[in-house]
């Protein structure tokens, strides 16, 4: 509504309020009218209803304010992937399936190259080793790519997971990458 209309409504409302208050506190002005307890109750209930309406409306309305831009520091290498890993760790399993796949694929690509170079095998052989978990002695690292090896009922695994800071996925990813780097470094 326009400001003018709103202003008029406001004025009328204020006048009513003043008259109403006067009536409340000066019964002589309203002497002709009788008071009914039932009616009071109805007015009260209407009031309560409106409280509900107003509160709901207020709750639904977002407050707005200007947001100045904060200085953004430059990122460090790998921050994005770390953030993705953390998000995967905190999200429920079904919601993060695609993200997990994407991370596995990315690390898988570099893993294939490392294995091809270190073991002198072909890329498809390398992928086989990754899928079977035969490329490393570390069980966690193996399970990162060889998801079939994961036993959801593994007692110690679950126990460790409940005390650890990182999710199981994060730990396996970390172990896998550490193993890959170890493979690289033994050669250098």
């Amino acid at each position: 509504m326009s400001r003018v209309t709103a202003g008029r409504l406001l004025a009328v409302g204020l006048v009513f309020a003043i008259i109403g208050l006067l009536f409340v506190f000066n019964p002589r002005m309203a002497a002709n009218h009788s008071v009914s307890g039932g009616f009071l109750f109805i007015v009260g209930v209407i009031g309560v209803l409106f409280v509900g309406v107003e509160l709901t409306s207020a709750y639904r309305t977002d407050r707005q304010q200007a947001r100045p831009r904060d200085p953004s520091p430059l990122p460090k290498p790998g921050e994005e992937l770390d953030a993705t890993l953390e998000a995967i760790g905190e999200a429920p399993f079904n919601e993060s399936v695609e993200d997990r796949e994407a991370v596995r694929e990315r690390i898988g690509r570099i893993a294939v190259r490392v294995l091809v170079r270190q073991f002198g095998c072909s890329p498809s052989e390398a992928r086989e080793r990754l899928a079977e978990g035969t490329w490393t002695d570390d069980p966690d690292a193996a399970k990162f790519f060889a998801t079939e090896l994961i036993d959801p009922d593994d007692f110690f695994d679950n126990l460790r997971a409940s005390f650890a800071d990182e999710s199981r996925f994060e730990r396996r990813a970390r172990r896998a990458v550490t193993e890959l780097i170890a493979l690289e470094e033994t050669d250098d």
Partner: protein
Amino acid sequence: MSALGDFALDDLADDGPRPTTYSQYLGLLAVAAAIVAVAPATAISLPVVVTGGVVLAAGGLRGSRAWLTRGYALMVAGGLLHGALGGSAVGTVGAVIAATIAWDVVENGIGLAEQLGTEASARRSVIVHAVAVTAVGGVAGGAAIFVSFVFANNQPLPALVLLLFATVLVTASIRQG
């Protein structure tokens, strides 16, 4: 590159930056005033107001608008309860006004901390704002109290209907649509 037009929508659930110190102090002062207003009290309302005050202050310390608002709601409930159970009308109005001032001053502080960070000072505007908000409450409450003192105590039907309409109208005029 300016951030013009980039605005924040209040997410009631989050903790936010701690508001500037002045805002905190003034807020606490107002909370204290509210408690004092209902202190010559009916048994139930005082603890409700005090609890509300504590919650509001906690909201202020955590920079959480959610807690701030819950604390305010409790304080208002306590104030209205005070009046409904026979406490003084002045105490009721005073408590609600003081609670409103507390809520507003602390919320302003949170907004300032969000926009200016916690190191910037905004002393003058915090005080000016607090004074203005106190003035509005004082005038509205004072006028109502004045009317109530001048006239006796009774509630005829049409008066209440009028009041109801009045409130609805004023509210409608205030809605942004």
